[in-house]
């Protein structure tokens, strides 16, 4: 049996204090057997365009990378893995002041590759800010 990863415990523990996710303020919302939902509250330090106050695209990508990574662990158990590639479509600019919600889903796992997709939104998944597709690789293989 694969070792279970508890995203709530991670984000309430060391994940909230150290590293890039903590630096940009990523928090935990919910998870299921093959998905994870994180959030990214608006913050002045995330702004990419000072004129409009719109946040940079980088923090959105970071949140979606983390949500997708945890989604893989939820489906296949915790194992060392790395993002192989990630594509983000920026459907519309994020609204200044509003929290972003990012939901990542793992829809397929093979021996060593996990396929993910996800959406970032401001509370309504049908009005998305960004759409994501990507793959992760586990050097030691996934437990399916």
């Amino acid at each position, binding site marked *: 049996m694969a070792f279970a990863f508890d995203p709530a415990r991670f984000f309430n523990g060391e994940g909230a204090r150290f590293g890039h996710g903590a630096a940009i303020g990523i928090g935990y919302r919910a998870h299921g057997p093959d998905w994870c939902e994180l959030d990214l509250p608006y913050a002045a330090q995330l702004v990419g365009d000072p004129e409009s106050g719109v946040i940079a695209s980088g923090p959105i990508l970071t949140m979606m990378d983390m949500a997708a990574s945890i989604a893989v662990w939820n489906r296949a158990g915790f194992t060392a893995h790395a993002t192989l590639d990630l594509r983000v*479509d920026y459907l519309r600019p994020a609204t200044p002041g509003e929290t972003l919600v990012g939901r990542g889903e793992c829809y397929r796992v093979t021996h060593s590759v996990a396929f993910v997709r996800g959406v970032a939104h401001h509370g309504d998944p049908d009005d998305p800010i960004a759409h994501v597709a990507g793959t992760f690789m586990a050097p030691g293989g996934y437990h399916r």
Partner: protein
Amino acid sequence: MSGLPPYADLLGLTLEPDAEGAPVLLMPFGDPVVGRPGFLHGGAISGLLEMAAYMALVHELAGEADAGVKPINVTVDFMRGGRDKPTRARGTVTRLGTRVANVEASAWQDDPAQPIAGARMNYLVLRS
């Protein structure tokens, strides 16, 4: 302050123009950009790549005061783990059209020929 947007300051980015004056970005290793212990977070690498692509495009558009750009999408390939050392990135505008620009960016640590990650981006170019 670096003169770069707040998010670039969060990543610790500084501008290091090359001999021709083209922008190269430097990101130091440190807690704000760490993922698993001892390695860069893929999101921080991506943020660096996107900023390098943006800077390259702005550099290319330098003569056009009224031109603005909006990212349409990005695809990032992660090739090697980012270790505990400085990372550099530069963007290359592969095509600058009237409405769309295609930009590539590459990030490396020791050797530009051994990138740790690369990105391809499409931008909407807005000329009023």
